C-alpha cells in the first residue's frame, strides 16, 4: 500500500471512529427519550 493509501485510510477511519465515539459518549451521558 502506498503512502497516499495509508493517509486516506487513517484519515477516513479517524474521522468516522472519532465521530462515532463523540456521538456515543454524548448519547450515554444525556437524557433518555420520554
Amino acid at each position, binding site marked *: *500500500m502506498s503512502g497516499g493509501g*495509508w493517509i486516506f485510510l487513517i484519515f*477516513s477511519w479517524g*474521522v*468516522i471512529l472519532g*465521530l462515532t465515539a463523540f456521538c456515543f459518549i454524548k448519547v450515554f451521558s*444525556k437524557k433518555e*427519550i420520554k
Partner: protein
Amino acid sequence: MGQKKRDSWGSRLGIIMAVSGSAIGLGNFLRFPAKAASNGGGAFMIPYFVSLFLLGIPLMWIEWTLGRYGGGFEHGTAPGIFHSLWQKNRFIKYFGIIGIFGPLVIFIYYTYIESWTLAYSFFALTGKYGRLADQASMQSFLSAFQGLEKNQFFNGLGPAYLFFLITFIANIWVIYYGIRGGIEKLCKWAMPLLFIFGLVLMLRVITLGVPDATRPGWNILNGYGFLWNPDFSALKSAKVWLEAAGQIFFTLSVGIGVILTYASYLSKGDDVVLSGLTAASTNEVAEVILGASIVIPAAFVFFGPVDIQSIARSGVFNLGFVTMPLVLNKLPLAAIFGFLWFFLLFLAGITSSISLAQPAVAFLEDEFDITRKKAVWIFGVIAFLLCQPAIFFLKNGVVDELDFWGGTFFLVLFATIETILFAWVFGMNKAWEEIHKGADMRIPVVYKFIIKYITPLFLFLILGMWLWQEWPPIIFMKNISPENHPYILATRIGLLLIFAVLAILVRIAWRPKPRQIEKLR
C-alpha cells in the same frame, strides 16, 4: 384518526439501533467496497465525505425532524406528514405517497435477496458449496439456486422458495410485535451481533498475510492498497462524484421514507440531532471500516491484482455469493467463516427489510385507525403476492426494474421534495427551531445555509444528471433483450397500479368523516 395510542420506542439506544439497522444493509459490505475500488480508491473518499456532510447528514436531520413533527399530529408516513407541514396545499399529501410506495417496492425484491443470505448461511454450515473451488462452478451453484438453470446442485426453485418463506415470515413476525416489542427488540441484539461477526471476519482477513509464498505480491497490504491507494485523476470525472453521492444515499437509507416513520414514534421533546448523527456514524463504521476490510482485500489476496479488477466490477451479487464463498472455502474453518459472512448479511438484511415494511403498516394504522395486528395481516398478504414476480421472473429483469424505480429514482425525487418542503415551504427559521427542539447538541450554524441551498442544489444536480445520462436507455429499454420487454412493461404497469391504489387510499383517508361533516354544518 387518533382513536388509539400510537406505539413508541422503549429507549434512545433502541431507535438509534433501529435506524442504523435500517441503514446498514447488503450495500455496506458489497456495494461500497466495489464502488470505492472502481472509482479512484482512496481518492473516492473525497467526494464520499463531501456527499456525507453536504447531503447525507442534512437529509438525515431533515427526516428525523419531519418524522417527529408528523408523529405529533399522529401521522407516521409522508402523506400525513407533508399535509401537516403544508396544510393549505391539498395536493401535497399525494407527493407523500412516494414515502410508502418506495419502501414497499424495495421490500418486494429485497426480502427475496435477503433470503439467499439465510440459505447460504445454512449451505455454509452444511458444506453444500464447500467443495467448489472455481468461479464457474460457484456461479452455476448460484444460478441453479436462483432457478435460472437446472444442474447437479439444484433442479428447481424449491429450496430458494423455502428460504424465502422463512425470511418473509420472520419479517412479518417482527413487525407484528410492533415498534417496541418487535423492531426495537430485534435491532438491539442483531446490531451488536452484526458488528461482532464483522469484526471477526475483518480480523481474519487482516491476518491472511501472504497465503501463497510463490506469489509474495498477493498479500493483504496490497489488498488494502488496491482499495485505498488514491487515483486523483478519477476526481475529474463527474461520474465518480455521482457514484459517491449515490452511495451516500443508499447507505444512509435517506429518501426512502423509513426514517420518517421510525422518528414519528418519538415524543415532541426527544432529541433528533444527536440521535440522527449517531445512527449515521454507526452506519459509516459498518461501511468504511468493516465493509472495506472484508471482500475486496480478501479477494485480492486469493485472486491477485489482475483478476481483482474484473471481480470489483462484477456486481454485488457476484462479489457476495460467488467471490466471497470461494475465498472463504480456501481458509481453515471455512464452514464457520462462511456462516459468519452470510449470517452477517442476513442480519444486515432483516434489520433493513423490517424498516421497509413499517411505513405501509403505519399508514394503515394511522390513517385508517385499524389495529397493528390487522394492519400487519393486510400488509403481509399483499406484500406476499407482490413478491412473487420478483421470485419467478428474476431472469427476465424484474428485480432490476423494481430496483431502478423503487430503490433509485424515487429515492432522489422523494429527498428533493422533502428538502424543499422543509427548508422553503416550512421555512428555514421554523425548521431550524424544530430541529433543535429537545436537542442534546447544537448543529453548526453553517448547516442552515447548507440545508437551504446546498443540499437541494446537490439533489437537483443528481436528478438532472440521471435524467440526462441514464433515463433515455432505461425508459426505452435499450439494454434489455426484446424477449424480456413484456416482463418489464408488465412490471411498470404493476408499479403504476400500486401507486394508483395508494393514491385512492390517501383520498379515502382524507375524506371528511361523517362527524366532521356534521361539525361543518
